[in-house]
């Protein structure tokens, strides 16, 4: 009995200690809001190219940010990677980022997708256009503003206002139209909802294909993922019914967001951290972003995936991305007032 107890204690202790940091010669520590499964192939390619191993903690951006802030100067994190510009801005405001001194980044990534003080850089582009089924024939839709037309009552599916992509959409709109007009727009949109917001972006596409609505606001990579996986016949067929409409091509452009990263002030491996970010901005990695998750590259000259190409070129909203972060709280309150659940 005593022996068993000792053995069990030994195993338990060694397990608890096993996850302690292993010091290897060249490494970089990544806090990632992007799911580990999506990052893994990119990180493996990085390690293969540079010999630097990457330790990763994945989680929600705000939780990671809180973790970095409370860990303070002893934080092991070198790089924070998020899936939206709003959180990058939040991290910058919290004063945790250092300046990225990289001529490579500033020469290849368009300034529109970089922080004005070079504290963070966008690494992949995510567009949030309008998608239609053949059933949506009431009127021609070319702008986000068109979605509030009373003839579209009960036609629109979009996920909850708790989602960051909707918050960013509204934040961008506040910048373009002002708060009052955006609130009117949100109210009109809510009035046209086919159902109480629920599920994720793919669920909206599925519901539209099933006939519950005919107009969807969703990120393109969800649609592309459904189109790419032909084994899942239901999803493939649902996605095949959708047409992508790039809204506001005559004026401000279609809403886009970036996933991106910055290096922490307290980073212990800042040279390796910069290497990692530069790798993620390289042509190889930019292509992988499209192959892994069907996102648009942040820089020009990268061959687009055929699915993305099939939707045609589009003009992206050129709003300064840090505004998405600055207006985020206002956007959430606005959606609360508009009754967007």
């Amino acid at each position, binding site marked *: 009995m005593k022996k068993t107890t000792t053995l069990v204690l030994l*195993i*338990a202790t060694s*397990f*608890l200690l096993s*996850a*302690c*940091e292993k010091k290897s010669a060249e490494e970089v*520590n990544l806090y990632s809001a992007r*799911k*580990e*499964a999506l990052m893994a192939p990119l990180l493996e390619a990085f390690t293969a190219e540079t010999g630097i191993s990457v*330790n*990763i*903690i*994945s*989680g*929600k951006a*705000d*939780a990671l940010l*809180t*973790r970095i802030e*409370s*860990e*303070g*100067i*002893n*934080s*092991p994190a070198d790089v924070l990677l998020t899936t939206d510009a709003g959180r990058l801005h*939040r991290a910058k405001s919290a004063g945790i980022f250092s300046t990225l001194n990289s001529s490579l980044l500033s020469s290849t990534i368009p300034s529109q997708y970089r922080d004005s003080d070079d504290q963070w850089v966008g690494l992949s582009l995510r567009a949030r256009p309008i998608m239609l089924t053949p059933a949506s024939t009431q009127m021609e839709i070319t702008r986000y503003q068109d979605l509030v037309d009373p003839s579209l009552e009960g036609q629109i599916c979009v996920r*909850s*206002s*708790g989602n*960051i992509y909707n*918050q960013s959409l509204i934040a961008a709109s506040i910048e373009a139209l002002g708060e009052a007009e955006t609130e009117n727009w949100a109210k009109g949109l809510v009035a046209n909802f086919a159902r*109480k*917001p*629920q*599920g*994720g*972006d*793919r*669920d909206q596409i*599925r*519901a539209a*294909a*099933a*006939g*519950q609505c005919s107009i969807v606001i969703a990120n393109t990579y*969800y649609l592309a993922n459904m189109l790419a996986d032909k*084994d*899942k016949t*239901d999803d493939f067929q*649902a996605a095949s019914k959708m047409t992508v409409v790039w809204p506001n091509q005559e004026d401000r452009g279609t809403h886009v967001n970036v996933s991106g990263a910055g290096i922490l002030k307290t980073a212990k491996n800042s040279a390796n951290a910069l290497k990692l970010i530069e790798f993620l901005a390289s042509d190889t990695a930019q292509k992988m972003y499209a192959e892994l998750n069907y996102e648009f590259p942040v820089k020009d000259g990268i061959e687009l995936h055929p699915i993305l190409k099939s939707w045609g070129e589009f003009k992206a909203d050129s709003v300064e991305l840090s505004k998405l972060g600055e207006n*985020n*709280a206002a956007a*959430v*309150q606005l959606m*609360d*007032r508009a009754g967007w*659940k």
Partner: protein
Amino acid sequence: MIRSFRWEFTSGLIASIVLLPLLTLGWLSLQSNQALWSHLASTVLGDYILSSLALMLGVAVLSLLLGIGSAYLVTQYEFRCVRFFYWALLLPLAMPAYITAYSYTGLLDVAGPIQSHIRDTFSLSYGDYWFPEIRSLGGAIFVLSFVLYPYVFLMARSSFMEQSQHLRDVAQLLGYSRTKAFFRINLPIARPAIIAGLSLALMETLADFGAVSYFGVNSFTTGIFRTWYGLDNVEGAAQLALLLLGFVVVLLALETSSRKRAAYHDKKTSAPAQRITLSGTKQLIAIGLVSLPLLLGFVIPSAQLVIWAAENASDFLEPAFWQLLWNTVMLAGITAVVALSLAILVAYAHRLNQSRFTKFAKRIVGLGYAIPGIVIAVGTLIPLAYFDNSLDAWMRSNAGFSTGLLISGTLLALVIAYLVRFLAVALNSVESGLDSVRLNMDQAARSLGLSPIKVLKQIHLPLMRSSLFTGLLIVFVDVMKELPATLVLKPFNFNTLAVRAYELASDERLADAALPSIAIVLAGLIPVIVLSRLSRSSKHTS
């Protein structure tokens, strides 16, 4: 005197594990937030409160019906497969609520197979027919009840099992019908246990985020997330969390007062009650009744998972999967044992001392379960990092070297967060076990010269064995399913099955999430089966 102080000190120390995040929460809430509150009050606060109340009420009614009904049937009657149902009714406990929610959504959603089939067969289009909306308050009540009723079932089952034959003899002497005996004798005696189980179910309901947010129900927890993430207002989120805690304090006060009014000790002098044999239609009805919670809470959702997993047979069992399984089981095992040990100390300290202080310690420990995992995570993260950094700064200036982060970012931090949340579960089981041992046993043993620790070891622990197993089981399974705290606190390159399943599901890749989900369920099954066997054999030997 010194000895009693030692017990008080121990229980205070353990309570401080739970108190620490609560104090952090309080400290975060200190800032006044008038603008936020007037915004919330004029827009969504009412919705949060009403939804949470409706959710609790619905889950309470449904899980009581399911839990008590099935526990009574499997303990008092003899019918085909009753031994199977005796433990199988626990199976839904292995299903995380959010995973059951995913399965049912996949099945019943507008784009799911059932509705698609209806449309194809009758060539209807959406809106031409009525179909219940799974993503609704009703859907959330349904899913949570069928996942959480086992808490009531477990407690009610062991209480009904412990009720001896002489109770039934008394009922017969009084000329009570079976129904009357149930309501006048069996149920009142089981009430403290049932309410303990119910309060766990309700606390879990209040803290649930996964299922509720997936169904688009604006509960309190959704509001906490929204205030923190969306409004970037940690203080406001902490204040909402404290308000939620207020709910729980009321709930727990109700539980304790019901326990106080109903302190029954069965003398256990007679044999366990004889089962009544059912046959014919009655047997079929009984089987039908106990099959229902099993089917809806376990068989149907896991069948959906298996179908999804089979569709994705290509990515079956990569080596990383075994690492995930190992991580998850080890964490759950360690936490379960530690939680149980600490809970025993807290409960026993109060039994020995009966002082205000030990009572207070017990109350504090009982609170953790209702705090949403994410709130606990932040409440643990901040003080631990503060401790690490202060120690580091002190060492740097006084000893000339840096200790860095000692606890933060290690598995120990994760285990501490789990303890904050799940000590309450362990304590609940320990207490219900301890309550059933009469105090004069302690006195007799002490008068024979045994020390309190020896009394605990030689008298209480053996007598409480089945309650302790129950506690171990629940904590183990709960940790396996735990998600939000793990997400925030996990160390580098470390994942659990729940995190993997969640990452895939939150990307709406339900089918890909099926495999880790099944693994959680399977790994959760092992303790369910082992422990129900153990508790049965301990019944035979005692």
